[in-house]
């Protein structure tokens, strides 16, 4: 113990709380066990009984995983589980995508660190870098999944992907975390650029690729011009507009030459599809839910009634019913010339469904912001929109991070429901694995355990990251 506690100093001031109670100070293992598990006879009894039960199940679980389980249905079909029947000669696209996205994550992490360093510099709260050990502890679920895939794999390919991906991620992290904090905007633009680029690798550079990739770059250009100290606000606005337009024109011309057909996402299958579907539905349902929440609290009755009706309607029906609607009936409502693919329709249904829940979560956050904040915003002359955008929303969203991440985790797991309408996501692909002659009725529990583990690893990481984000955003505030 570094400092003597009040108790040891012999003060009896009731206001001085024992520090051990405040900080849950670590006791040596022996003492901890004695204090928490065997401190009286009935507690000891409960400990012994529960201990036996836990040990029994742990033993059964371990002996299943390492002895009885026959993992060949998983290891022989890893590619199938991950990609489904994705054309094998186009598999390089997914490999490239994985490597690019690892790089994107490294870059994003580095950008976050660079931003945190800048804030630390400005606010005087020292920035403490995570140790490698704490980074490993942060992502242990994900690392365990990765390790398992590597152990189980039958070919050298995945090993190469993981090593190259990790190397790219670490390199980009190293570089971007050392970029001066004032340029952190460009890093985030690069993150968005790479993210879209990775997606385009699989889906091809046809269509509106230039639009997708131009957008983050345009935002960066606009911000760069916006940061310059110009006296004339109007001149600055025009320059920003010209810069943004310029980026889009250049991107358009470049991608005219880059044009290549990719794999339409109606051919995406397996866990790859679960991940992408969840990412897309999360990305789309968040802004939609936000707008719905604002509409529900709007002072315009028409908006309010529409939003309320929508939310209550959608929340009142099961998601599976909505998915079946998407499968069979959306064609009647949306009279498009070319029919939308099944996956697109399913994603629309999932997005609409989740948006209603996001809206209610955000509304809770909006209500938690004290009315004094709005009054303060108004009294410094902010418009209603500026008050919402700059004062209410940042505080509201911060307050609802846990609930929101919970909803997104649930959405991620609900992507398995797509199997019901015949989309080849991971559960559906599992059926395929077992329809092969050699795996028919063989290792059914094992493949299921594998699927569960894959979902758990990612959901757990999301949950841990949200807890961390929550703690970080709380620093120095309130």
């Amino acid at each position: 113990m570094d400092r003597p506690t009040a108790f040891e100093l012999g003060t009896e001031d009731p206001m001085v709380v024992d520090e051990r109670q405040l900080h849950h100070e670590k006791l040596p293992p022996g003492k901890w066990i004695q204090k928490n598990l065997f401190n009286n006879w009935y507690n000891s009894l409960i400990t012994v009984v529960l201990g036996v039960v836990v040990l029994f199940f742990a033993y059964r679980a371990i002996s299943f995983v390492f002895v009885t389980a026959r993992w060949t249905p998983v290891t022989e079909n890893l590619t199938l589980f991950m990609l489904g029947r994705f054309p094998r000669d186009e598999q390089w696209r997914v490999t490239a995508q994985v490597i690019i996205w690892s790089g994107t994550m490294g870059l994003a992490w580095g950008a976050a660190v660079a931003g945190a360093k800048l804030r630390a510099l400005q606010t005087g709260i020292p920035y403490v870098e995570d140790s490698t050990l704490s980074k490993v502890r942060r992502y242990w679920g994900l690392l365990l999944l990765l390790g398992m895939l590597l152990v189980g794999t039958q070919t050298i390919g995945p090993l190469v992907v993981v090593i190259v991906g990790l190397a790219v991620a670490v390199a980009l992290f190293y570089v971007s975390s050392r970029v001066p904090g004032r340029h952190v905007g460009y890093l985030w633009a690069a993150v968005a650029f790479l993210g879209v680029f990775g997606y385009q690798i699989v889906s091809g550079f046809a269509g509106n690729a230039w639009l997708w990739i131009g957008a983050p770059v345009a935002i960066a250009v606009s911000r760069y011009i916006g940061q310059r100290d110009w006296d004339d606000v109007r001149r600055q606005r025009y320059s920003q507009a010209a810069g943004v337009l310029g980026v889009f024109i250049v991107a358009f011309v470049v991608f005219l030459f880059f044009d290549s057909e990719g794999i339409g996402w109606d051919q995406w299958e397996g866990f790859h599809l679960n991940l992408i579907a969840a990412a897309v539905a999360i990305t789309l349902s968040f802004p939609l839910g936000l707008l719905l929440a604002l509409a529900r609290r709007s002072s315009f009755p028409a908006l309010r009634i529409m939003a309320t009706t929508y939310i209550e309607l959608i929340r009142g029906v099961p998601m599976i019913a909505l998915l079946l609607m998407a499968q069979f009936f959306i064609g009647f409502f949306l009279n498009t010339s070319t029919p939308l693919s099944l996956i697109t329709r399913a994603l629309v249904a999932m997005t609409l469904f989740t948006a209603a829940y996001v809206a209610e979560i955000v509304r809770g956050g909006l209500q938690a912001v004290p009315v004094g904040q709005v009054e303060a915003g108004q009294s410094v002359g902010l418009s209603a929109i500026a008050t919402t955008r700059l004062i209410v929303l940042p505080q509201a969203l911060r307050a609802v991070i846990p609930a929101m991440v919970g909803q997104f985790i649930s959405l991620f797991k609900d992507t398995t429901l797509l199997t019901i309408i015949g989309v080849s996501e991971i559960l559906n692909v599992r059926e395929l694995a077992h329809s092969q002659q050699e795996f028919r009725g063989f290792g059914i529990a094992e493949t299921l355990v594998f699927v569960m583990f894959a979902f758990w690893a990612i959901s757990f990481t999301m949950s841990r990251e949200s807890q961390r984000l929550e703690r970080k955003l709380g620093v120095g505030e309130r």
Partner: protein
Amino acid sequence: MTDKPDNAETDDQAFADATQMAGSGELMIELDGVDKFFGDFQALKGIDMRVARKEVIVIIGPSGSGKSTMIRCINRLEEHDRGKIVVDGIELSNDIRNIQEVRKETGMVFQQFNLFPHLTVLDNVTLGPRQARNMPKKEAEELGMDLLTRVQIPEQAQKYPGQLSGGQQQRVAIARSLAMSPKVMLFDEPTSALDPEMIKEVLDVMKELAESGMTMLVVTHEMGFAQEVADRVVFMADGEIVEVGTPEHFFHNPTEDRTKLFLSQIL
């Protein structure tokens, strides 16, 4: 001025006196027969008041007397139901542009500070000018630092409000209001949520502000501040203005029984 007859004091005369004292004849704020209801409860009953430019008015009265409601009506945080409110020649109507104009010209300081907890102190101060007046960032930050120096906490500029003491937070709130270069400052019990040892630092800033010629309406329970700084003291009870007068008149020679009762309870 000390020997004027007590009972002949009308509001117009008080206004004339006040304008003499403040050295400015311009009308800054005019309230004319203002009524305000919360449901069936009438919070303001026919309030008439005129405030001259550079005048410092202190509003006192028992809780629930409508003091806060009145000054909240002046920048439309509350909407009045009847009567007329004119601020610097702009009449408050339902036109949102009118309301915006009035809000840009009136600063407001709240009992609970209402600083933006997710922004640094400097960003709290510069938000108004940058958003509502399109001021370039650099200029806004220079202005912000000037104002923080004026309220004597420039060293806290990069901290978050949660890291500051109550007195410091309230001074930031004053700086935030001043950043919009308002013509009127409204104070809604600015020291009521503060620990006693922090009240003085906020009152000192307010005194300095009054000396610089700012038009101020202050709802407060700080009688010392009222005696020292106010040009006129307004006593409100049950949604009505009961008595208006100079601090000397008000504290030493009040006319109304209601005022005498109130003073006997608090002094």
